[in-house]
């Protein structure tokens, strides 16, 4: 039979069995939709990570407290500016390093009381952590040395309280017993990978925070530094370790990590997530495919007589195989297209959740290929069974 005639027969059959076709393709529709969403979520996650790390250089290293459940906050040795000076002196691989500690305090801005993240920093923080000042000025050396009561506001805090960030400059906020002058506002960052979200934080000189008792016992200082080049990261870390080993009573409480490692870990976990999601989607497809196979088997059974007639009239095995196989593929194409169409409805809804999504043509193509392949693979066996029927048995089937 000519292919066009086989397709025409399939067309007639599919139209005749609209509701059955629709139910069968439901599995494929859901599978297609799942694959598209999964790829969009995977892609979204990767893009988010890329964006988060985009202004973080791989040369960054961190000296962090390694938190453990039985950590004693009273006795733990704190990093201080003394240590930092020593680390810097003994380490030719380090370009610069700063100390910071984070605590949470009630802050009054324009009469409103609210809890904010207070980040005490030493000199060099803005260069190392890529935090640029968009309005006003950064802390001067004098501010740091004299522990002046000055702060730099995160972008969101400034724009929420003062509408325009530039209005914040020269205003005062109250933390505890004292007033602090706002001398600068940070550029918008939209990321929180440094251990705090700069947009939502109040930056203050480390010495100021210490002198005014803004750090509680949980505000354990960490150090952030830049290595001269990524090649020296290993040496730099080793050198810092040896300095800490003799300066601190228990240096094992601190871990030294580099940003490259963090980026790798985050990317790896995103990839892991993507694989996980794809395997879920694959399961959906297998289930959908089994659905197709099931319906096709029923269809072959129902149409055994018809197959018998076709065989009696001389239709070749190949044509019968092709008819049932292409019917299945047709269901796959239909389900795939509907699934892709539905993804245009579903993806905008994802914006209302916190899950980052990035729709892509690739995702749609992959999903369509999956849909058609699944339908083809699972349609083959029933189609083969149909083609293998003996004409007399099929004709006399009741």
């Amino acid at each position: 039979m000519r292919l066009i005639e086989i397709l025409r027969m399939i067309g007639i059959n599919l139209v005749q069995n609209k509701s059955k076709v629709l139910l069968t393709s439901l599995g494929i529709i859901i599978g297609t939709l799942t694959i598209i969403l999964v790829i969009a979520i995977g892609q979204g996650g990767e893009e988010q990570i890329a964006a988060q790390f985009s202004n973080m250089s791989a040369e960054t290293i961190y000296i962090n407290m390694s938190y453990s459940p039985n950590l004693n906050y009273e006795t733990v040795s704190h990093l201080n500016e003394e240590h930092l000076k020593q680390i810097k002196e003994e380490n030719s691989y380090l370009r610069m390093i700063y100390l910071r500690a984070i605590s949470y305090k009630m802050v009054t801005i324009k009469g409103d009381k609210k809890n904010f993240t207070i980040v005490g920093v030493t000199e060099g923080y803005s260069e190392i952590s890529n935090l640029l000042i968009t309005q006003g000025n950064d802390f001067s050396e004098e501010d740091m040395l004299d522990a002046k009561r000055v702060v730099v506001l995160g972008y969101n805090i400034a724009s929420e309280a003062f509408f325009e960030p530039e209005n914040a400059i020269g205003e005062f906020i109250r933390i505890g017993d004292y007033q602090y002058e706002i001398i600068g506002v940070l550029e918008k960052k939209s990321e929180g990978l440094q251990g705090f979200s700069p947009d939502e934080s109040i930056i203050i000189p480390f010495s100021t925070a210490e002198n005014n008792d803004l750090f509680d016992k949980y505000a354990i200082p960490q150090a952030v530094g830049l290595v001269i080049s990524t090649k020296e990261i290993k040496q730099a870390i080793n050198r810092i370790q040896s300095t800490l080993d003799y300066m601190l009573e228990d240096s094992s409480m601190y871990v030294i990590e580099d940003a490259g490692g963090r980026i790798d870990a985050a990317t790896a976990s995103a990839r892991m997530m993507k694989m996980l999601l794809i395997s879920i989607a694959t399961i959906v497809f297998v289930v959908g495919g089994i659905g197709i196979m099931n319906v096709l088997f029923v269809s072959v059974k129902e149409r055994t007589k018809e197959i018998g007639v076709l065989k009696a009239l001389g239709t070749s095995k190949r044509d019968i195989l092709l008819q049932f196989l292409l019917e299945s593929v047709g269901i796959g194409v239909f389900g795939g297209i509907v699934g892709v169409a539905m993804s245009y409805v579903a993806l905008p809804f994802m914006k209302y959740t916190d899950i980052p999504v990035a729709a892509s043509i690739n995702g749609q193509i992959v999903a369509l290929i999956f849909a058609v392949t699944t339908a083809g693979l699972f349609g083959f066996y029933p189609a083969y069974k149909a083609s293998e029927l003996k004409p007399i048995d099929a004709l006399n089937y009741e």
Partner: protein
Amino acid sequence: MNEIVSLRNIDKSYTIANEKLQVLKHINLTITKGDYIAILGASGSGKSTLMNVIGCMDTADAGEYCLDGVDVGSCSEHELSVLRNEKIGFIFQKYHLIPQYTILQNVILPLLIQRKSRLDATSIAEEYIKMVGLWERISHKPNELSGGQQQRMAIARALVTTPALLLADEPTGALDSQTGKEILSLFQKLNDMGNTIIMITHDTKVAEHSKRIFHLNDGVLN
């Protein structure tokens, strides 16, 4: 080359529940062009099996079968399907039309199987649909027709390929006697036009419409 069907010592047996059952025993039959024969037999006499063998839907265990000059015994499965399509027009007791297709779609089917274009197939089929008197019903579906009309539609489908042999299995079995007579007179007309017909039936009255009657008893033809 006037021999359309030539059966020589055809044997066929089935094994059911470990018991070998010989259904056809040394069948010999020669049918020449323009013949109109009836094979008369009670149920269980082996007439369905004989019809399947003649119709190339089943193969004999032993013996020789020549259909319009082709040695059927040496044919592959695919060659058998080509033989069925080109040389045999089947007419079944239960019509065996495809329910979701219209009359035209059913009748052109054997021609489409030959890879003829839809246009050519349609013009050939329309001729036969006119001939069996269903022209006004051409776009109806089988379930919208009476039994007699369905059988005429099946006859049109059997004729479109101008087969060497029309093979009818109880063609009036599902019809009332009046309609049955109409179908039989159509057979007469087809035979007068030169078609070779084998009719298989259990009904002596039906068989009497043919030129020659063979009796099949327990797999023996005489």
